[in-house]
């Protein structure tokens, strides 16, 4: 880059989110806030059975209800709406047909069977109670261990069993390492099923203009561009005539990184009826039919030497797919597989990952997506090994960390960690809590019959989802920067946010580069009609991939601007400075041209240097060379009441290294929210199904997400180890809190209860479970 930027004022500064004023004032527009003339309303009839043949569907009474415009069933849309796709490419993967409305069999509770369109939402809801469905119940498959037994009921006769895929790994010499181990620790882990529950439920509004042949779909989605492409394929419409808009999106946590049956059916109904059709998910629908997260049963063995060296890891990972594959379902546990060694150098690893069909809602990406499972396994195993060796959990971790100069580090699972200094972040966390003193205090309290627990988790995770070779549907990102005639800057990004704050952080990047006010920059996203190219926001990739595309596009436009400014100032391009809305020769700020003047010159186009085209706009597609690998150390302190099993979380310290930081407020906000969700998994949340595949936790009366009063004050610290794989040196931080916190908390509670002989406890660690673990150990 030839020109110099002014002093960096905004990158790294704690700028308050520019999005928030409209959000806290209720001035923003979510899908349900958008109302079109003659808009119709859609509701879905869903299966009450987990596995059944549909004998008949009688829609007559519903059709006769005044205000009902249309009732459709699976048969009605066969050949008109394509099957819901799965983008995963895994060798030998079995992909069942996934009709948008069930045709002759239902395979999970909540599966859509029929759709009603009415002139008002109340009638559309009333009509559902008038549809009669006759079922023939089938035996259900609900338990992961049972599902892979040879005598299990098979969900897809054509597949012969319930195994969706098997992925083996045999790196190094695992058998020899186990034979030579001083100790072997073994444990079965249940990583329970979670329900994402973003604050805004899903919703779709579709409008088809028959004259123009255009379909516009407003959807609460994380991936408008994928949705656009897939809808055009499912409905056989020209992609150029399909536009998807993700307006304000109230959270997703991965659950909106998908294409759902309702999106396809509502878009179809709009084209068929030639009327705008809206569907807004009810919270009770969301519990059963928006993707779930986690749900693994893992059998793990670890070989260790007396000095604490981990020599091998062996695991069988059973991952619950649910009844159908959603967009990325089978990919999620592959991330578990890749990240099994966590923050430790383990060269001998043998894995068998088995994806399993059951009669439950599909699992897919939920904040952390596969990495919380891996981190839980490795962090629990390391603690179990330390316990067996009589070693402090701190010592065994330092013993097995790679050294900072070993990066980039190729791991036995085939991934290459980009950069790291695990000692630095761990030491910072240990210092923050004064670890040695804590252990002394713990011993004192124990002698008084009080049970303090200190939990440690040192994690490494994979994010910044790209390069394309590793991300189904593409791992690149696109950004456009356009300087308008008035000198105002429009940023168009493909990473459509749903709470991450790109309107703030991306403007910070551009403002610094151009030396202009952040107020002169608008960041546009979530509309395929305005930003035609993009992938989306997930996998902590927005800044690492989308931000990287943006900085390059920004610099491309800046270079052109500098050429024009140099022409205007009769100066050398290399001597120019962009600062405070002006462009001038270094050392001569008094004879400057304004940023706006240069923009106007570029657009008026009568005083351009030779060979320079009018306008100021650039689009860049960024393809990262590798994933990024953030890391860090979390420490939690709990006290357990052994009489009731209640856990008092007293302190939570997080030291995260996400590379360079654009906005520390956004980073800490991500860490807070991430820890809260990990804490939710560790202590409160769990989707419970009964033996017939009925969801028993179908409302917030029984499914507990942490409330503001139930989380402690988080202490967040950072170390900075830039990533070499993108020009910003950032790694991503959207999921780190979730990835580290659940094992950190379980380690703390197990540590507290170790005097009772408790060695492990399943999540969520409800008071009942904690109390039971103490009873069982005694």
């Amino acid at each position, binding site marked *: 880059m030839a020109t110099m930027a002014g002093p960096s004022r905004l990158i790294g500064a704690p700028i308050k989110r520019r999005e928030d004023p409209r959000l806290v004032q209720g001035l923003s527009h979510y899908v349900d806030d958008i109302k079109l003339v003659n808009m119709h309303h859609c509701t879905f009839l869903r299966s*009450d*059975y*987990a596995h059944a043949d549909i004998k008949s569907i009688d829609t007559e009474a519903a059709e006769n209800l005044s205000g009902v415009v249309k009732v459709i069933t699976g048969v009605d849309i066969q050949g008109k709406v394509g099957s819901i796709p799965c983008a995963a490419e895994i060798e030998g993967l079995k992909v069942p047909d996934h009709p948008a409305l069930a045709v002759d069999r239902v395979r999970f*509770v909540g599966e859509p069977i029929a759709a009603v369109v009415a002139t008002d939402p109340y009638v559309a809801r009333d009509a559902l*109670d008038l549809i009669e469905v006759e079922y023939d119940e089938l035996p259900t498959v609900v338990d992961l261990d049972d599902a892979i037994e040879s005598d299990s009921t098979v969900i897809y006769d054509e597949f012969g069993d319930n195994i969706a895929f098997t992925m083996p790994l045999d790196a190094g010499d695992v058998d020899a390492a186990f034979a030579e181990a001083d100790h072997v620790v073994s444990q079965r882990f249940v990583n329970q099923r979670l329900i994402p529950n973003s604050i805004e439920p899903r919703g779709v509004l579709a409008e088809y203009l028959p004259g123009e042949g255009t379909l516009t779909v407003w959807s609460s989605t994380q991936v408008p561009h994928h949705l656009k492409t897939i809808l055009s394929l499912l409905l056989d419409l020209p992609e150029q005539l399909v536009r998807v808009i993700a307006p304000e999106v109230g959270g997703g946590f991965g659950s909106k990184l998908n294409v759902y049956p309702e999106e396809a059916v509502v878009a179809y109904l709009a084209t068929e009826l030639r009327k705008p059709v809206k569907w807004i998910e009810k919270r*009770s629908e969301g*519990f*059963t039919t928006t993707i779930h997260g986690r749900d693994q049963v893992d059998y793990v063995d670890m070989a260790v030497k007396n000095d604490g060296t981990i020599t091998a890891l062996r695991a069988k990972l059973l991952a619950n797919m649910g009844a159908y594959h959603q967009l990325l379902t089978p990919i999620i546990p592959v991330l578990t597989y890749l990240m099994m060694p966590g923050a430790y150098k383990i060269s001998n690893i043998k894995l068998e990952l088995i994806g399993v069909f059951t009669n439950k809602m599909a699992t897919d990406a939920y904040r952390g997506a596969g990495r919380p499972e891996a981190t839980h396994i490795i962090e629990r195993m390391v603690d179990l090994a330390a316990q067996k060796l009589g070693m402090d959990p701190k010592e065994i971790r330092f013993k097995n960390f790679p050294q900072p100069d070993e990066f980039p580090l190729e791991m036995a699972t085939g991934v290459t960690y980009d950069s790291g200094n695990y000692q630095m972040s761990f030491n910072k966390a240990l210092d923050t809590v004064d670890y040695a003193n804590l252990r002394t205090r713990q011993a004192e309290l124990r002698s008084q019959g009080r049970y303090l627990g200190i939990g440690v988790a040192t994690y490494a995770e994979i994010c910044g989802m790209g390069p394309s070779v590793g991300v189904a549907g593409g791992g690149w990102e696109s950004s456009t920067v356009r300087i308008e005639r008035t000198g105002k800057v429009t940023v168009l990004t493909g990473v459509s946010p749903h709470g991450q704050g790109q309107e703030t952080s991306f403007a910070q990047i551009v403002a610094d580069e151009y030396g202009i006010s952040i107020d002169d920059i608008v960041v546009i996203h979530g509309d395929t009609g305005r930003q035609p190219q993009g992938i989306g926001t997930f996998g902590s990739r927005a800044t690492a991939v989308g931000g990287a595309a943006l900085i390059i596009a920004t610099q491309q436009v800046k270079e052109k601007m500098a050429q024009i400014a140099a022409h205007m100032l009769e100066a050398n391009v290399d001597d120019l400075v962009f600062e405070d809305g002006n462009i001038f020769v270094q050392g001569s700020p008094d004879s400057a041209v304004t940023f706006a003047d240069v923009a106007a010159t570029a657009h008026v186009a009568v005083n351009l240097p030779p060979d320079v085209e009018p306008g100021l706009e650039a689009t860049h597609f960024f393809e990262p060379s590798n994933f990024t690998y953030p890391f860090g150390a979390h420490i939690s302190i709990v006290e357990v009441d052994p009489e009731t099993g209640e856990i008092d979380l007293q302190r939570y310290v997080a030291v995260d290294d996400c590379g360079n930081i654009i906005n520390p407020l956004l980073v800490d906000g991500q860490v807070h929210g991430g820890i809260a969700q990990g804490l939710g998994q560790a202590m409160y949340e769990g989707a*419970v199904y*009964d033996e*017939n595949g*009925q*969801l*028993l*936790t*179908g*409302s917030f*009366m*029984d499914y507990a997400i942490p409330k503001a009063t139930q989380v402690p004050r988080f202490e967040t610290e950072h170390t900075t180890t830039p990533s070499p794989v993108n020009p910003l040196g950032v790694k991503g931080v959207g999921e780190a809190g979730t990835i580290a916190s659940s094992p950190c908390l379980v380690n703390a509670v197990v540590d507290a209860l170790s005097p009772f002989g408790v060695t492990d406890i399943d999540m969520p660690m409800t008071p009942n479970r904690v109390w039971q673990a103490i009873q069982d150990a005694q």
Partner: protein
Amino acid sequence: MQIKSDHTVSANRERVWEHLTDAELLSQCIPGCEELKATGGGTYEATIKVGVAGIKGTYKGTVRLENMQPPSAYRLMVEGKSTIGFLKGACDFRLEEAKPDETKVGLNGELAVGGKLARVGQRIIGSAAKMTIGQFFKQINKLAATDTDS
């Protein structure tokens, strides 16, 4: 969900048997029973309004009596559905003469519920079932005992 309970009815075993297996008498004893129509082979079509508090559902379905071993044992099969879900149960009834004019009825069975009922009602379904069975036997006791001499 397991259903297991014991009940005492102040009447002799034959009389209790009659009340537990006769459609007309049954319909008077099943709480909320609006209709019980014999369709043959020990099967009845039933419309039953079940519920606690304001949470009531009208269930349409079938009641079937099987393994009839008068007057000591039979199996009751129930299937019903409403707009808020379905229920399905199988329960063995065992009648024992405790004293003259006092019969012990033991229930042992399974109840499965589905749909919204299961999703939001897990906490109270067991209790509600227990209460409903309690009310049923209260009514049986009332009818069987008071009608003894008729």
